[in-house]
């Protein structure tokens, strides 16, 4: 038996490259540890759970370092054809860094929110859910088959619904969670149907094999394959908050705890666009004539609707600051889609999607920074209206200057140099791909966006109403502000650090 069985066993038993899957795995494991530890930790010590989670996320991010030297794959098909379910290449590592870094900053913001929340939040569950969602988001860019992709999408999303509605006795919070849940589940179901169509036509779930076989689909099945491609995109477009899948965004952001809104705006988007990139560029490159124009239209629509809605926000309305950030994140999602759409028109699709990754890195740093300032202001002004930011410079000059910097980065004007050049790379992919009309639409949107960003900025420097009340910043918030601020400033001096992803292939 031994002579025959040994190669057979070797065929059946996959060897797992534990180092490659370490970052998402560690995140999930720390999540479980926190959940269990919550049962044994006395109430007074609960903040410890938060710091364990922060440490866990930092450790997971550090585990990316040993993976830098070369690409690794694991969970591979054994046999003649080589196809793997999990790949840690440059694209994966960059997006995992973005996800874990974003989750780390969210955790820093959450420590203060939970402390101020006076037991309105169940701590153990909060950290468990956050870490699970982060683990799913970190798994997603590494997935190289459609099943893992959908599973990762669900792992990233399901805890997020609970996080949105986690505040005890808050009607708005649970309503937002329900809205988010119902619309998201529908989108995922549609995606799943698309995947099944693709599987039906190609007989494989591995992205590389799908890419290979979908070119030779039987003529009768051609429509089925096309439908499958489009439907698969829907679930990811939903997570990116692309119009018309965006309607959940403002209410969800307002209803969710502030750090979770920040998390959704950055990590949620990362999940969406990395899935889109994998599906379009890796799985369906031969259907570029289908998804290219579709994404281009989606991008134009998304940025226009997002920016116009953000423009219409009234400064005195309750939660208008978060609402504005929510709508502006929809607008920014439009910019993120532009290079992916351009990838459908150029020969060098990898280079184009690199611009999305570079832009997302910039966006993650400055948007989380803006949310961190919003968290600072929310401590004294619970309604978090834009008009509450009036005179912030007099109360807290450094925070005001940082918010100015973050908003101008988002707007893409100096001194936010990194924001400017990130926009330039996005523009250049559009021009390079011959999508002149999309570039012009984006140009108009940049001007619209400047209006509301600058209006907010100008408000910071107005004379404050009433006596400026100073208060000390809690350490975790200071850390988050320092981290994002330093990142933004360093990147503005050396934009190459993130823009290099726009110049080379990532896969």
């Amino acid at each position, binding site marked *: 038996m031994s002579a025959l069985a040994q190669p057979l066993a070797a065929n059946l038993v996959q060897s797992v490259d534990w180092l490659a899957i370490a970052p998402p795995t560690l995140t999930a494991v720390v999540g479980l540890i926190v959940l269990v530890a919550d049962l044994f930790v006395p109430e007074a010590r609960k903040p410890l759970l938060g710091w364990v989670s922060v440490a866990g996320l930092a450790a997971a991010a550090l585990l990316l370092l040993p993976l830098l030297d070369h690409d690794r794959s694991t969970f591979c098909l054994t046999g003649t054809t080589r196809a793997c379910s999990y790949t840690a290449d440059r694209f994966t590592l960059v997006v995992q860094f973005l996800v874990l870094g974003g989750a780390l900053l969210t955790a820093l913001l959450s420590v203060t929110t939970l402390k101020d929340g006076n037991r309105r939040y169940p701590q153990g569950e909060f950290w468990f859910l956050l870490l699970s969602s982060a683990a799913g988001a970190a798994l997603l860019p590494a997935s190289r088959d459609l099943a893992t992709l959908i599973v990762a999408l669900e792992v990233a999303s399901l805890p997020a619904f609970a996080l949105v509605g986690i505040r005890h006795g808050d009607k708005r919070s649970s309503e937002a969670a329900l809205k988010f849940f119902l619309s998201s589940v529908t989108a995922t179901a549609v995606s799943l149907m698309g995947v099944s169509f693709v599987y039906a036509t190609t007989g494989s779930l591995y992205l590389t094999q799908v890419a290979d076989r979908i070119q030779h689909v039987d003529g009768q099945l051609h429509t089925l394959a096309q439908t499958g491609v489009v439907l698969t995109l829907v679930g990811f477009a939903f997570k990116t908050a692309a119009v018309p899948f965006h309607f959940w965004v403002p209410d969800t952001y307002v209803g969710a705890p502030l750090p979770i809104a920040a998390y959704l705006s950055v990590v949620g988007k990362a999940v969406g666009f990395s899935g889109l990139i994998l599906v379009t560029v890796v799985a369906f490159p031969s259907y570029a004539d289908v998804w290219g124009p579709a994404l281009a239209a989606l991008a134009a629509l998304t940025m226009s609707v997002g920016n116009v809605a953000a423009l219409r926000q009234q400064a005195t309305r309750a939660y208008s600051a978060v609402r504005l950030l929510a709508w502006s994140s929809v607008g920014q999602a439009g910019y993120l889609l532009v290079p992916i759409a351009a990838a459908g028109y150029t020969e060098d699709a990898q280079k184009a999607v690199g611009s999305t990754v570079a832009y997302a890195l910039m966006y993650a740093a400055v948007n989380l920074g803006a949310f961190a300032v919003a968290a600072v202001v929310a401590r004294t002004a619970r309604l978090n209206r834009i008009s509450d930011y009036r005179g912030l410079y007099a109360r807290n000059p450094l925070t005001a200057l940082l918010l100015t910097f973050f908003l101008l980065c988002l707007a893409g004007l*100096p001194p936010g140099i990194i924001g*400017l050049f990130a926009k330039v*790379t996005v523009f*250049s992919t559009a021009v*390079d791909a011959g999508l002149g009309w999309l570039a012009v639409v984006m140009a108009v949107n940049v001007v619209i966006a400047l209006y509301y960003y600058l209006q907010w900025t*100008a408000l910071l*420097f107005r004379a404050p109403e009433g006596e400026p009340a100073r208060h000390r910043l809690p350490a975790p918030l200071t850390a988050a502000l320092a981290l994002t601020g330093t990142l933004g400033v360093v990147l503005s001096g050396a*934009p190459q650090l993130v823009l290099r992803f*726009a110049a080379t292939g990532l896969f």
Partner: protein
Amino acid sequence: MIDISESVMQFLLALIVVGPLLGAVAALLPAPPGLKGKSPEQAVLRHGVTVTGAILIAAIVLALGFDQDHPSRMQATTDISWIPALDVRIHLGIDGISLPLVVLTALLTFLCALYSYFNPPAGPSPKAFVALILVLESGTLASFAVLDLLLFFLAFETVLIPMYFLIARWGGAGRTRAAWKFILFTLLGSVVMLLGLLLIGIKAGTFDMVALATDNGRSLTTSVQVIAVLAIGIGLAVKTPMWPLHSWLPDAHTAAPTVGSVLLAGVMLKMGTYGFVRILLPVAPDGFRTFAPYLAAFAVVGIIYGSLACLNLAKRGAKGDLKRLIAYSSVGHMGFVLLGIATMTPTGVNGALFANIAHGLITGLLFFLVGGLKDRTGTTDLDTLAEETGAALYGKAPRLGGLLAFAAVASLGLPGLAGFWGEMLALFGAFKPAAGLSRPAFLTFMAIAAFGTLLTAAYMLAVVRRVCMGAVPQDTPELADVRTYEFAAWTPLVALTVVAGLWPKALLGLTDPAVQQLLAGGTR
């Protein structure tokens, strides 16, 4: 003139661009011990004077060290890679075209800082004011010194935020609207310009202006050139401003504080015309040739339109605002600059560059004078000033009146003063435009533009009559005449206006070789 080693020149040019930025950061920090001055306000305003003064000295040394025998050669060049992913290089350098603009910018900013030191702007803390002025200076100087398209765009954008805040925080009536109009117009223009710059960069494979100019559009197809010139031209035309994209300018000038108006008219408008000469003419000559007649036509309409608007504002009972009038006169003057560029001849382009500098000197002076007048009388409204007979500035404050009359006469292009040569050369250029351009069309433009000079003379003289002349009523209080610091801030402008008028070769000798080479294709 004097021999300065190349590395020192490089350092000076880099200092001119970066120095004001560092100064701006320093202005926001608390003053170090020993430099605290009488009050924090005084200390920071003095800081502004020191930094801009140092930059002016650096610019003058740079001008002295400039090899005037080879003004067409890029000098004091630095070329470092910055963002390889986008192929952006920190490429700095000056030639005969940019050097005068660099010196003009440094001079005007220094004079503004000096003026503000003695006459602090009304509004919030001067700390931010000084920081914004310095950022503005850095952005303007950078746009004249950089030789990379994307860096030029960056410099072009850098001035937007400071100018917005200068108008919105320290401005007069209607400042919020004016500031918005300014920034939205300019940004829309410059984003469209970015698309054109990217198109050129992607199709030609480089963003380097020197390489692109040497290539002279040979690696760009005509259709690419046409689209790029249209896109870039719109962005630059908004900034210049060219009729009909000028409508932000009068509002911005009327609302801006004196210093803001001086810098806006004196140096920021030049960024637009400089872009036409530095980028469009050499990089996309075929595309430019397509649009040259239209550009000239718009320029000529601008000349007439600006003059008619001014005539209308200068009328009795029209409630004309002096600042607004000067802003409209800027539209007319910049029309001459654009006409000169549109001829695509060395004569026309030299005239355009000369008129650029002259406009910076004269209009800067005019805005200073009107600002001084506003400080004394509290208004810039012509009807309020002139009342029934005229403001009688000659009688009330003879030196101020004399200076105003001088600036007005210089602005209308009196031979012997700076305003004359630029407009004349631009007209000469239009008399014989470059090959491939329709001569009859340009002759018509020339005739109309020449008529525009008459209109300019008409409204300028009307202003002088209504503001400077008139009977001095016996019981009115004396107006303070020109103060010492005002003399200090204004004399350099007066002197340079006379020098440029009497000795145009000093400037033309610098620009002409560079222009010849740009038009022939290539900068060394």
